[in-house]
């Protein structure tokens, strides 16, 4: 349905303009995000890379509308998300956004299947249809035999797969991933990253990921280095050049990968950290 617009490679799906976030701790002001501007293109895999406390997670939360900006504006698909009503934002999340969290954030009282179903429940989808979609999604992430398991009965990797299935089940245009492999060992991390990237590329979805792990950052099309709330540099992996400013030339483009399916995950080009 959105194929046509998604194919428009130069379209900016997210525009961050002079975003600023200041926390007030008593009398002290902490500038978490300091006048940051950049764009995210449709279908792009963007990584916000930085040490802990650099403000990258805050930036992600700001983009997802979970936190409020102090100044500046963030546009997603042409909507100023900071101006949206709570209800509008909820509807927007239902239809456009998916989330993958470091600590999975699954509901422990529910089975894997029910967890994956949850975003569809909020969308008023009927039970039969959402069951089918959720089941298929869990099969896609390789948990076809874990449908009825509770999160507490699963390993971290499996839980994160459920988290990924949940994020992708409603086929969102943008998926936000906050340290998705933070709690996983390196082998599982790679599997999970391949899964996220494969699914996103297969459906031409945009991914914004936050990480402090350089290896993981290499999965991205573009890496924005964040330091002390500011953009330090932007590395365009596909073009191979480094820019000091927010404006980066569009090179290569995500089309290269659009034909890819989950089956081809293992064959993903290994990005060599320079």
């Amino acid at each position, binding site marked *: 349905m959105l194929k046509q617009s998604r194919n428009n490679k130069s379209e900016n799906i997210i525009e961050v303009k002079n975003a600023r976030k200041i926390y007030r701790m008593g009398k002290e002001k902490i500038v978490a995000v300091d006048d940051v501007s950049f764009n995210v293109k449709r279908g792009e895999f963007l990584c916000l890379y930085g040490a802990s406390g650099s403000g990258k997670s805050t930036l992600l939360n700001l983009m997802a509308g*979970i936190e409020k900006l102090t100044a500046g504006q963030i546009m997603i698909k042409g909507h100023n998300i900071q101006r949206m009503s709570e209800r509008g934002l909820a509807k927007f999340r239902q239809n456009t956004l998916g989330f993958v969290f470091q600590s999975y954030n699954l509901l422990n009282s529910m089975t894997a299947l029910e967890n994956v179903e949850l*975003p569809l429940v909020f*969308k008023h989808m009927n039970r039969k249809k959402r069951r089918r979609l959720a089941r298929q999604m869990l099969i896609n992430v390789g948990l076809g035999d874990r449908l009825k398991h509770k999160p507490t009965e699963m390993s971290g990797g499996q839980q994160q797969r459920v988290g990924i299935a949940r994020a992708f089940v409603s086929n969102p245009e943008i998926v936000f991933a906050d340290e998705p492999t933070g709690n996983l060992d390196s082998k599982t991390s790679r599997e999970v990253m391949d899964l996220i990237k494969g699914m996103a590329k297969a459906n031409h979805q945009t991914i914004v990921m936050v990480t402090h792990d350089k290896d993981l950052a290499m999965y991205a099309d573009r890496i924005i280095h964040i330091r002390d709330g500011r953009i330090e540099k932007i590395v365009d992996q596909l073009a191979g050049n480094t820019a000091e400013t927010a404006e980066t030339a569009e090179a290569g483009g995500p089309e290269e990968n659009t034909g890819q399916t989950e089956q081809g995950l293992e064959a993903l080009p290994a990005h060599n950290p320079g």
Partner: protein
Amino acid sequence: MRISDLLRMGLKNLFRRKVRTILTVLGVVIGCLFIIITISIGHGMDRSFEKQVKEYGSLTTITIDTYGAIYDDNGNWVGGQEQKLTKDLVEQIRAMDHVRAVTPVIYIYGRYISGKYESGANIMVMDRSVFEAFEFPELMFGEYPNDEDNSTIVFGYNQPWEFYESNPTSWMNVKYKQVDLQKDKIFFKFDEWRYQRNPRRKEFMLPLTNVAKMVETKAEYDYNAYMDLEYFEKIYMQYCNTLTLDDRKKAMKELDEYQQIMLNVDNIDHVEEVQDKIKEMGYQSNSLMQYLKPTIEASKTLQLIFLFLGAVSMFVSAISIANTMVMSIYERTKEIGIMKVLGCVVKDIRMLFLYEAGMIGFIGGVIGVGFSYLASYLINKYGKPLFGALVNRGGSYLGGTEVAEVSYSIIPLYLPLLGLGISVVVGLLSGYFPARRATKISAIEAIRTEN
């Protein structure tokens, strides 16, 4: 969220915290039980009250006797006074507000004679116009005295008493006879011992040719006969003419004063007011209300106590529901945050918590209704020592017969619905603020919460 999803999720959440849910529900059960039982006992008392009223006569009737007992405010007897009940007094009372009907009453005693048999006679003489206003019972046959024919004597269901031989051959073996009012020839005679008959006059004998009989009422009507005042005055004059000159004067004088005045008030609420006015005129009066008032008040007090207990326990259960919901929100902060991030609208979160609270109320209400039927059954079966005194007290004053089948607690159809409604409303009300609080949880903080 769809309603069905909301319901499923809410039930699941309640079930997840079984023990807490059960304890909270228990509070509602007790509150609901108290409220239903209170109202049902109220209904039971109303019912037995109505029964008593039917048995002992109208509640709106006031009587004034020739001897008026004086009571203090606490109902203790402090003295008495002779009261002259004259025609003037009757007219004065007739002119009072709220008085629907008033009649002088004369009790006459004598004997019914039927051939060799006789029986005691007691007849109440009243103004024929009041039979209707006093709501006298229906008649099996005959008619009440009216303007065309005032000569009817109306017998209660158990009247006259059994006839016995006037001069039995042997006192050991008195014969009795069933007399048929409509067929047998019966005469009425005034008591002979009161006044001396002029020996030259023929004895006064009133043939009972025009009679009527009431249906059974199980009330005092059954044991009386009634006669019109005007007709009585006519026959009394005839009777007086048969007496000696001295006694005739004495007997005639009796007509100037009545033995009782009965009046009917238009509304139960005006009985006391009219009684007070009569008291101002210097006369003591009686009414059934006087006797029943302590009973009514006691039962109302008891009901009030129960209702208070019900309200208190409902209030406590409301607090407990609110507490449960607040606890549940604390525990589920993270869950709520996740739901919000996944696109759950605030309205759905509020609905979910309201629904859970309402469900606690509903389950408690259903169980409470069930228990209240059980409690009602037990009260009716074993509750006599506690409730019997209250319900039957009015009866014991008036020497009435024990009521065989008494329901102390009656649950009309609307009552379970009311109990259920109150329970659900209490649930929703006490869930409202916690639910609002749940919606205010910030998604980012909720997600950061560890649990």
